[in-house]
Each structure stands twice: as C-alpha cells, then as structure tokens.
C-alpha cells in the first residue's frame, strides 16, 4: 500500500490531545493517509461550526413553517447552492471520480445532460406551480392535484426509501473512512449521525440549508486544489490527453476514448459503459434526470424555501452553473489519476474493481473509488489534507441532512397529519418533526448496520429508490400540464409504473439475457439497463394516466387554479434588469451547456 506520510506540525498541546483522543476512538486498520494534528484540528473545527449553527438557528424554528420550510425566507443564492449541495454527497464525489478513471469523460453525462436541462425546466416551467400552490412537499402537490391516493403512495415510498438510502450512504461513507483513514466503522457512523441529528433537529430546514451552503464552500475549498495541481503535473489538458494516449499505446490502461463524450455512443459495444445515445438522452437526460431534479423532494424542498417566486425560479438556474462546474473537481481528478498516480517504485498505479481488491487481500491494490482520496493524499500537505477529508465528510453530512430533513417534512405533513392526527396545534407538528428527524437518523443507523451484516442488500436498496423516480415524474407532469388527468388515473399510473420498474428489474435478475429486451441490446450494461427501465416505467405511467383519464371525469377547471398549466393565473412579478432576469440566466446556462457538449463532443 502506497502511503504518503505527512509531516507533523508543532501545534499546541490541546490539538495534540484531541488528536490522541480521536486516534484512540477511531483506531482501526492500516490506511491510505495519516492525519496530522493540524488535519484533526481542521476536522474538529468543522464539527464545532455545524453544531454551533444548529444551536444558533434553534430560536428561528419554532413554527412549522419555520422548521419545515425555513420560513420561506431563503434568497435565490442560498436556495440554489443548497439545492446543488444536497445532491453533492461524498459518495457521489468519489464514485464518479472512480467512474471517470474507469470510463473517461463519459461519466460527465451525469452532471451535464443528466442534470442541466432538468434543473432549468424546474426553474422556468415547473417552479411557478410548486411555489404558487404553497405546497410543503411533492407528495403534498399530488394531494392537492389528485387527492390522497397518489399522494399516499408517493409519501410512503419517498419516506421509506429516503431513510434507507441515508443508511446505505452512511455505511458506505464509514467504509471509505476506514479505508482512507483507518477509522472504526462504528466511530464514523455514530459521530456523523449524531452531528447531523443534532443540527437538523435543532434548527430544522434552515439549519440544514445553512450547513449545506457551508458544506458546498468546503467541498470546493477542499477538492479544487487537486485538479489544479494535477493539471500542473500532467502538463495541462493537452499534456493529460497526450499522456493518456501514451499509456493506452503502452498497454498500461485499457484502450478507449477517454476525452470525448458522444463519439462512442453510436453502438452499445463501442464504449465501456455499454450505453447508447438514446439511453443517455431519453433515459438519463429525461426519465431519470427530470424525475430526480424536478420531483425528488430531497432537492425540491430547498427551492420551495425561497423567499419569492423569482428566487424560486432563479435558484435551480444558479444551481445549474455550479452543477456544470462540478466535473472539474470530480471527473478531472479521475482522468488525472490515469496518468499521475504511481506506485512506490515509480511505476504507473493501476486501480481495479472492488471485487478484485476483495479477492486479493494484502496485495496492496486500490479500487477505482479510491482515486479521489489517493489524489488528495498525493498533493495535500497537513492542513490541506484535513480540508480535503473535511470536504468528504461535509459532502456526506449534507446528503444525510437532506435526507432526514425531507423525511421529517414528508412524515409530518403527508403521513402523520392526514392519516394520524389531523387537528393538532402547530407546536405539536414541530415537535413531531423534530422527533421524526431523530427517528430518521435512528432508522438510517439501523439500515447501515443491516447493510454491514449483509452487503448484498445494498444493491437492492439502491435499486429500490430508482423504482419510484420515473413513475412519479409521469404523475407530476401529467397532473401539472393536463387539466384532463383524473385522480384514479394518477393513482393507478403511479402504481403500475412502479410495478413495471420492479418487474423489469426482477426479470433481468432472474434471466440476464432479458437485457436485450429491457435495454434494447445484449451488449447493454447495468447503467444502460437503469436508463431504459426508467424510460419504460415513465411511459407506462404516462399511458395509463392518459387512457384512464380519457374514460374518466376530470375535476372542474376552477378547482385547478394554482395547480395546472392553463388553469393558473401566475402572479405578475415586478420587472427587473436583464441581468437579474431568470430567462436571461437560463439562456446563458443553455449556451454554456451546449458549448460544453461541443467542446468535448
């Protein structure tokens, strides 16, 4: 195992004492990195800061509107950064850096075509309806539009999946900390979850949002140095491309086009991801991306907290610029890892899959997912390494806080209030929300330990989450843009779309050759299967709602004000200069998005 030992500093005895204490609690296996007292101090200060914010904001979370919706007082910048940060988990950072090492710049599709069009659509087209109807959640919107049936299905599936996903991420993060720092799994799980539970239960959504903005800044501050120094070492972008070509020619890395995004998308077998451009555009770019960015309450909740309709529309647009930039700190380090990472003897380091690492214990192998920590350790001296590790921890905590704050709101507003206790006082619902936050964390911890005892569960839990995204998109879009969609059609569309997704998943599990039907090619791989499965389940939901509604009786148009396009009179907004107008910035975002596709065609 390659280790870059970092020189210790002569800091004060307090820091040394804290370091010793953490070392005692976190004792574990040999690790990639050794933290100095300065690094430990950087991490400890971060924890103090997030708890301080939670305590400070407790006085601002006394009513349900304050606790669950942050008082709807967030500016466009705060809501926009929080919107992106809630999605920017550390596992995503490390996972996609590993994918970039494995597949090249194809991994950036998940940041560009897989996010930007949907974010802009949310801001420009959908946000007015979410915002004007004053819903507290996405299931809440379905309740207003279609009644309890579709809303209850969406609320239970979201609440259940959110805490399960949070637990899976918690376990995966603890494993990363074990590999990178040698920290004990229990230590990582307990410390991080207690911190998140404390600041979200204390300050509610406002605290979660404030911390997410803080974490977003830290993620950039801690991770940005890696691609900068990596490009210096590789000789710039052209140097990187030349070195990749040299390594391919020398047989040091597998052949393939690592620096172009669309050229190898003509056939499934032409690219290592085993995907086709139709899957990327319609499956990822529409069904998955629109499903996640426009109907997943985890991210939409941040935008609903905006202080005006204009801020709510601007927030996803602001977020889209930062989302477009994320590949610089995620994808680029993965690509740089292909040419700069070296073994202790100076030879090129070859990263491998998790299964190969597990099959060869003691061989000193590293997995693809470790490329980002390896790059951090390669360039970061004491203090900077602590900052990088803090960025990873911050990423994890922002994702978890997003999960539990969204769970708390959906549990209280969409399950507890309509089904258990309809007429309680406002303070009661705030108390329920605080306890729901703690309950969400406890269930997450339970899930983490469940996954620890049977890792095979992890794949199924992650797949479960994907089952609900595309059908929910179908129901929300049909409800928002078609006055004729009926209550019964939405319920059955949502249910049958979800069952379609589950059925296709089970079919391929039982008979892998079924992939040729589900993903349209025997050469398709897992990622392609996810894209097409989402597309088919969306289509089923769409068709069921369309056909059943044609034979049903729609609600009177007068009842759809604020909920449906064509039946809603949007409030007039005061004119603003062009540089503050959402259409102007959306246009710039589209131009930047198209420019990136052409640049890396």
């Amino acid at each position: 195992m390659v280790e870059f030992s970092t020189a210790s500093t002569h800091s004060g005895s307090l820091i040394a004492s804290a370091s010793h204490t953490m070392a005692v609690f976190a004792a574990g296996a040999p690790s990639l990195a050794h933290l100095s007292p300065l690094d430990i101090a950087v991490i400890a200060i971060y924890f103090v800061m997030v708890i301080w914010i939670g305590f400070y904001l407790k006085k601002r979370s006394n009513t349900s509107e304050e606790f669950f919706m942050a008082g709807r007082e967030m500016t466009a910048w705060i809501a926009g950064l929080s919107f992106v940060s809630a999605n920017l988990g550390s596992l995503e950072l490390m996972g996609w850096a590993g994918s970039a090492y494995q597949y090249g710049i194809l991994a950036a599709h998940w940041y560009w075509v897989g996010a930007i069009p949907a974010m802009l659509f949310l801001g420009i087209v959908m946000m007015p309806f979410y915002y004007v109807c004053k819903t507290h959640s996405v299931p809440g919107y379905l309740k207003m539009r279609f009644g309890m049936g579709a809303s209850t299905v969406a609320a239970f599936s979201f609440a259940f999946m959110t805490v399960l996903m949070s637990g899976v991420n918690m376990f995966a993060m603890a494993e990363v900390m074990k590999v990178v720092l040698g920290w004990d799994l229990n230590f990582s799980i307990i410390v991080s979850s207690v911190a998140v539970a404390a600041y979200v239960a204390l300050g509610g959504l406002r605290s979660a949002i404030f911390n997410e903005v803080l974490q977003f800044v830290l993620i950039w501050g801690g991770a940005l140095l890696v691609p900068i120094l990596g490009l210096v070492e590789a000789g710039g972008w052209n140097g990187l491309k030349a070195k990749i070509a040299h390594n391919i020619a020398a047989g040091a890395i597998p052949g393939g086009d690592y620096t172009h995004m669309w050229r190898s998308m003509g056939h499934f077998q032409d690219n290592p991801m085993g995907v086709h451009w139709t899957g990327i555009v319609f499956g990822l770019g529409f069904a998955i991306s629109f499903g996640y960015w426009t109907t997943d309450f985890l991210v939409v909740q941040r935008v609903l907290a905006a202080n005006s309709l204009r801020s709510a529309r601007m927030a996803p647009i602001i977020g889209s610029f930062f989302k477009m930039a994320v590949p610089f700190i995620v994808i680029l380090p993965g690509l740089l890892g292909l040419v700069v990472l070296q073994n202790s003897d100076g030879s090129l380091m070859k990263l491998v899959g998790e299964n190969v690492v597990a099959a060869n214990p003691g061989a000193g192998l590293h997995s693809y997912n470790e490329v980002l920590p390896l790059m951090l350790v390669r360039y970061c001296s004491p203090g900077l390494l602590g900052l990088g590790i803090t960025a990873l921890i911050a990423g994890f905590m922002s994702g978890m806080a997003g999960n539990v704050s969204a769970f708390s709101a959906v549990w209280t507003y969409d399950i507890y209030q309509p089904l258990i206790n309809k007429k309680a006082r406002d303070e009661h619902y705030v108390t329920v929300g605080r306890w729901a936050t703690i309950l969400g964390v406890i269930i997450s911890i339970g899930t983490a330990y469940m996954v620890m005892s049977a890792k095979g569960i992890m794949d199924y839990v992650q797949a479960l989450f994907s089952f609900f995204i595309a059908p929910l998109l179908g129901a929300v879009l049909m409800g928002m843009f078609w006055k004729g969609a009926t209550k019964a059609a939405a319920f059955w569309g949502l249910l049958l779309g979800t069952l379609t997704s589950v059925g296709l998943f089970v079919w391929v599990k039982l008979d892998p050759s079924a992939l040729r039907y589900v993903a349209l090619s025997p050469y398709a791989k897992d990622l392609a299967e996810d894209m097409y499965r989402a597309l088919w389940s969306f289509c089923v939901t769409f068709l069921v709602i369309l056909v059943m509604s044609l034979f049903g009786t729609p609600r009177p148009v007068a009842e759809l004000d604020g909920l449906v396009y064509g039946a809603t009179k949007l409030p007039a907004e005061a004119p603003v200069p062009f540089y503050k107008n959402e259409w102007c910035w959306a246009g710039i975002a589209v131009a930047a998005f198209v420019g990136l596709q052409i640049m890396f065609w």
Partner: protein
Amino acid sequence: MDSLESTDISIWFFIGVLLTIYGAMILAYGLWELISGHMANVVLANLHAPVWWGALMLALGLFYGVRFRPGKQ
C-alpha cells in the same frame, strides 16, 4: 446576493469565519514549512500550495467575515 437572511447572523458570515480560521491555519503551516525547510512528503511540494491556497482562503474569509458581519445593514 443579499447580505441578510432574516436572521441576526448571515450564513455568509459563518462561511467567512470558517474560511478565515482555516486560511490562517493553513497559511501559518505553509509559512512554517517555507521558513524551516521541513517540506511535507507530497508531490509538487515545491509549489508551496499551503501558502497561496491558505492566503486565498484567508482573504476570502476576511472579505465575507467583514462584509456580512452581524449588525451591518
């Protein structure tokens, strides 16, 4: 971006404080490394990243800390 978020302390102030502390710590370490010659065993240590990265964070932190300090309208 607005300076106040309807709370007594803006989030940008919290960010300023954290960046100032981190910037000062990392810059101090970088300067100690520069003066003492005890370089960390990392690639491109000759570029003294802790000095300029720490200075950048400190400058940004001070800007946000002062610009969004509590009580400033």
